[in-house]
């Protein structure tokens, strides 16, 4: 028993865990009947229970914490393997793409709320601003997709700057109100504005890179691969970039300053931390990430409407963050997978999904307020933050 625990707290733990994730996701995504899907979901609970019983959860945690590079590599390989396994399956590839898009946006929200403590109830709005910017620039101004993608992020960050003054001057509930008002305002605006396509929305041109059109299936002789494969590859690249950016920020002195601002503004101001500067940095960076994710997501959807970016969606993003554990970016990725996948696959609850899932978050906040995988406190010695 002891030997097993030691074995799994080494590099083997990461590999084993990654294999389990790969296997489970493969079977879960392939399942189409409701009963096997339920069985797979219960299997997760069962596996967690068994791991807890054998005291293996601690060794896995130690393994992941001790071999971060290996674990990151494993996760990337798992994702790439999944994308490859479903290379002909439009629907599952689309789901994987959505998961990655949401993850990037929630990473942005995490920088704002998890690190700097800037409340943002309009994450979906910035996601939407990115989408609409890319769509309009490409259809109306004929700008190529790659600059459109960057512009999505930049415009989201710039519009965020307009909100900065009220967000920075206010705090607590008042700041929450400002962002909420913005979310409602934007939704109504997109709904009634003719130029932005009104409630019907607008079509978006597909991504194309170096002459490679993302909206065509890939044909190799006999086999035909889904065009979503290209989007998923691009999303995987974006997600890796965003993840390493956020992780670098967290580990650097910037992350330290952001943590200081979040935990006590007065104290950190006394020690010479420029509060305004860090709040602005975090808010803008977060909006940039959400906007970029939104731009790419719009290209994958090929069609966007205001109904995609409501206040309820902002709440969804916030709940993902809360479920995963505020500030813990790995937990956030995990939570995104569950929040996006389960209602899509488990169609029985489709109609009741908002009900079930807001009730779940409610219970979560009452009984486990730090999230499923709470962020560990920083360790200042040993060179690892």
């Amino acid at each position, binding site marked *: 028993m002891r030997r097993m625990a030691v074995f799994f707290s080494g590099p083997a733990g990461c590999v084993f865990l990654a294999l389990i994730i790969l296997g489970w996701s493969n079977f879960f995504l392939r399942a189409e009947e409701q009963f096997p899907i339920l069985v797979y979901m219960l299997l997760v609970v069962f596996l967690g229970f068994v791991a807890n019983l054998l005291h293996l959860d601690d060794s896995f945690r130690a393994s992941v914490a001790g071999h971060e590079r290996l674990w990151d590599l494993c996760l990337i390989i798992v994702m790439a393997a999944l994308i490859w396994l479903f290379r002909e399956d439009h629907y599952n590839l689309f789901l994987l793409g959505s998961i990655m898009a949401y993850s990037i946006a929630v990473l942005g929200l995490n920088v704002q709320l998890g690190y700097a403590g800037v409340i943002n109830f309009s994450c979906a709005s910035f996601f939407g601003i990115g989408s609409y910017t890319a769509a309009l620039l490409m259809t109306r101004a004929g700008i190529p997709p790659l600059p459109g993608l960057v512009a999505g992020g930049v415009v989201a960050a710039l519009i965020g700057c307009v909100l900065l003054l009220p967000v920075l001057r206010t705090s607590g509930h008042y700041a929450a109100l*400002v962002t909420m008002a913005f979310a409602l305002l934007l939704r*109504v605006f997109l709904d009634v504005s003719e130029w932005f396509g009104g409630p019907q929305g607008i079509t978006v041109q597909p991504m194309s890179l170096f002459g490679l059109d993302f909206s065509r299936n890939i044909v190799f002789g006999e086999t035909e691969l889904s065009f979503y494969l290209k989007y998923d590859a691009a999303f995987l690249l974006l997600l890796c970039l965003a993840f390493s950016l956020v992780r670098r920020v967290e580990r650097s002195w910037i992350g330290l300053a952001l943590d200081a601002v979040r935990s006590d503004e007065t104290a950190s101001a006394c020690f010479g931390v420029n509060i305004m500067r860090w709040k602005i940095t975090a808010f803008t960076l977060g909006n940039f990430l959400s906007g970029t994710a939104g731009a790419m997501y719009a290209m994958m959807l090929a069609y966007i409407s205001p109904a995609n970016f409501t206040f309820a969606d902002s709440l969804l993003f916030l709940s993902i963050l809360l479920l995963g554990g505020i500030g813990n970016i790995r937990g956030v990725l995990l939570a995104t997978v569950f929040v996006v996948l389960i209602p899509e696959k488990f169609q029985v609850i489709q109609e009741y999904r908002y009900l079930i899932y807001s009730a779940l978050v409610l219970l979560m906040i009452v009984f486990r307020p730090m999230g499923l995988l709470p962020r560990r406190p920083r360790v200042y010695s040993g060179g690892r933050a």
Partner: protein
Amino acid sequence: MDLILQFCMNGLMLGMMYALVAVGFTLFFGVLDVIVFSHGDTVMIGSFAGLAMYWWLGSYYPELAVFWMTLWVLLAAVAVVALLGMLTADAMIVPLRKGPPLNTLLATMMLGTVLRESIRLFFPDGSNPQTFPGLLPDWSWQSGNLNLRFDNIVLFCSGACIIALVHLVINRTRLGMAIRAVAQDEEAAQLMGVNFRFIVLATFALGSSVAAFAGVMNGMYYNEINFGVGLLLGAIGFSSAVIGGLGNVYGAILGGFIFAFLQTIGVVVMPFASAYKDVFAFGAVILLMAWRPTGLIAEPASKRV
């Protein structure tokens, strides 16, 4: 001139409704320092409870006089919503007070979603808008473009009476004194023998009853209720309470009328774009917040380190 008067009437009517919602927000904030965002959906529940009562009366006592009908509808709405409010406070908000305030806000938003979805899924035909009975006689007085409806005047006056009543309860009764004491300093109030739990429950019952009235008023004014109205009403009530300054009942009333005024101005100034009225109103709220970060009647903001 007539048209302007008509806009004023509509604006006042809306303002009264918003003020009634905002009073709840500000009362809860005063006592517990939390924002109960599900309050907007509580209003919606109130109107649906009233409607259910009306249906029930209609099938069992169809000959009941309109006055008694109205009274029963109101009573049903108030009873259901006051119970709901007390339950929310006791089961959710008081236990959550130890955590960060954001959690409470998010939890109440989720509760709002739960309420909204429950009505949509479990109320008969709840996903479609429901016709709400007028109940009051539809006398009206027409002059040029001005159309004064009797039921609107009754609704407005009773709204004003409710606000006056809340004012009296808070300023003239022992209960009100206890509420103010808890709002000022919870621990000191408890040392003086105030029963904290009772006061919290009483405040939630009071605020929610006012919301129930707003819900019935909303239904009678538009003659239609919709499960999704709670989100916008909640946001408007929250905005109104915040514009006025949280924790201040008069601020909330002022804020409610300011918000309605902004919406009306949006319609009057830009008749070509009346669909943008909410954009205009929420934009103005954001600007107001940038100008006065803690509301027009500011809450005393000193921070002990």
